[in-house]
């Protein structure tokens, strides 16, 4: 038997043993013997996840100088936050995760499938917890974002503004492209569907995938043949990350008529917020000579990007990220000195105004 085979067999056997242990724990979580094995398994997987991310260039801050001790301590902390009581149930997050992934009868489940799901949960949870220990964005998604940006700023594509929206859009630059600029942009839901579908069918390289996205958009005759650049980048990076992510787990989100109404309300609130920001805060800053109208346009775009994140991922990035996205590169270095206060005020009040509008919507009988 070759070395590779032996290695493979050992790994398979270890994995099988871990899977059996996990199943035993899920069936009888109050038995201390299996519980200890389960906690060891989780801490080990978390430590491995941290080490993997360190190896992939993540800059993780540890309290200790010794990296190994730091990984150990961090893994214990993360395991504690994952395995504690959740909604009044011991190990509630673990059990809820399995339930929402369709595991209703543990005794009937394949142990290896259960272990795959647990690794998914641990990968996701570790990533979330580590976000507090690293900078703005993880290096993997930063890197991907740059690669897609390179493609979309290449000759095949052009950046433009459409009458129906504020933010910069991207479209094909081929002479015969019919951009249908008088039509509305696709909704976010349609946008995601187009990106996902073209990835599954035609995504073998990033270049081909981007082409396929705009091919699909060509068939949407009721809509403008452009996509918001920021939204497109966010979606392709997210889909790409999910594919490359070793621990990606099945999604639970299922579209419903209610969620359609919610998107519609959020879109309406977004437009109203931008109008309000433009006519109130930004106009006053221009009148007082604090910013130029060109800078105000960029701030409005940054506000829109922030609202897009709020709507589609329910959380926003750190504010300088939007500043860098919307402002010309030569102004980036002047953020702290010249723009920080006005920029923060604009985005924070916009976020509060938007949330108020959505709160009114939730109170209504939708």
């Amino acid at each position, binding site marked *: 038997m*070759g070395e590779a085979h032996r290695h493979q067999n050992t790994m398979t056997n270890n994995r099988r043993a871990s899977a059996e242990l996990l199943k035993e724990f899920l069936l009888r979580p109050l038995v201390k013997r299996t519980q200890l094995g389960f906690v060891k398994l989780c801490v080990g997987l978390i430590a491995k996840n941290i080490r993997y991310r360190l190896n992939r260039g993540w800059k993780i801050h540890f309290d200790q100088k010794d990296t*190994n001790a730091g990984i150990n301590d961090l893994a214990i902390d993360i395991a504690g936050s994952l395995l504690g009581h959740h909604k009044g149930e011991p190990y509630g997050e673990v059990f809820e995760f399995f339930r929402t992934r369709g595991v209703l009868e543990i005794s009937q489940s394949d142990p290896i499938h259960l272990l795959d799901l647990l690794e998914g949960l641990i990968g996701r949870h570790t990533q979330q917890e580590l976000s507090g220990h690293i900078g703005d964005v993880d290096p993997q998604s930063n890197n991907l974002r740059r690669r897609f940006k390179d493609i979309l700023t290449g000759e095949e594509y052009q950046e433009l503004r459409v009458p129906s929206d504020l933010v910069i859009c991207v479209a094909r630059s081929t002479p015969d492209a019919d951009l249908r600029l008088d039509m509305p942009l696709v909704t976010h839901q349609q946008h995601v569907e187009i990106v996902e579908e073209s990835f599954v*069918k035609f995504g073998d390289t990033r270049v081909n995938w981007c082409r396929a996205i705009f091919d699909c958009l060509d068939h949407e005759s009721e809509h403008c043949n452009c996509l918001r650049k920021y939204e497109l980048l966010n979606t392709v990076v997210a889909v790409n990350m999910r594919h490359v992510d070793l621990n990606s787990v099945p999604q639970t989100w299922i579209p419903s008529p209610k969620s359609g109404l919610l998107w519609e309300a959020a879109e309406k609130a977004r437009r109203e917020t931008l109008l309000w920001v433009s006519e109130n805060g930004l106009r006053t800053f221009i009148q007082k000579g604090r910013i130029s109208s060109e800078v105000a346009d960029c701030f409005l775009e940054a506000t829109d990007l922030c609202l897009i994140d709020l709507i589609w991922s329910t959380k926003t990035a750190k504010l300088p990220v939007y500043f860098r996205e919307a402002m010309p590169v030569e102004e980036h270095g002047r953020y702290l000195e010249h723009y920080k206060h006005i920029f923060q005020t604009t985005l924070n009040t916009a976020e509060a105004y938007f949330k108020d509008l959505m709160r009114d919507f939730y109170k209504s009988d939708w």
Partner: protein
Amino acid sequence: MHPDKNRLKAFVVAESETTGFDDIRVHIAKCEFCREFCDEYQAYLKATVDTPRLDGSAVENLANDLHRQALRGLTIRLAPLHPTSVAPIYSLAADGESEKEIGVRNLATLYSDNPEIILRLMRDSKQSEDYLQLISDDTELISNVLVQIPDIDREFVTDESGRANVTVDSPVDWNNVKWQIKIPDAVFQLEPLTFDPDKVQYSKKMLLETDSNDRIQVMFESMARGKQISLRVLELDGSTDFDAVRVSVSQGGAHRIKETRANETIVFNLASPDEYIKIRLFT
């Protein structure tokens, strides 16, 4: 279409040597996404080798904390393991002198498999007493717990070793009553009460707290008529808003249980000031 991720993983584990992965080889030659996935998985496997050995005691501490949290206030229902019955002994004159009865006999055995615990009800003929013995690898489950028989409204508090004497007012068919174990929400232990024998009256107030934010106020009082502690539950699991709490106070083999509520004070007389005092709260 992209291959299933589990096949990609299997391909990486096989280190590209095994046959049966020709389709994967062809696919990843042209698909940069699946190629990157394989690279990532390779890096993940390498991380296994680089990952430091876990600090065993820290993991065990975490596991113990989580286990305690999970058991806190739990009610464990027991099932009969194999019903046995003890037939009443009728003595006839022709039987002559009966043989001396065996020292200890098993009256009933009950169990739970999640968590794992066995309850044996025993009769000690020599001592003329019945007692229950809880058996488990996990001491949290047997020490200082409340064993209840709701059908006949009886309950017993076990000692450190999981034993409690069983006394009933009238005969009980042990195999046909339901048994359950109630794990305390909080346990406090106090040193033997020390007081100044030269003083006729003595009192001392103190606050006790668990890691789970359970807080009680205890007042020792030594007066001419005897010693007692007054007890008030201030917080349970960090909350001041709670319903009835049953408080058990044990000293040596003696246990007393009383019910209390928020802002109420209950008083227990102490039999012996030289023994440790165990206070347990059950919700």
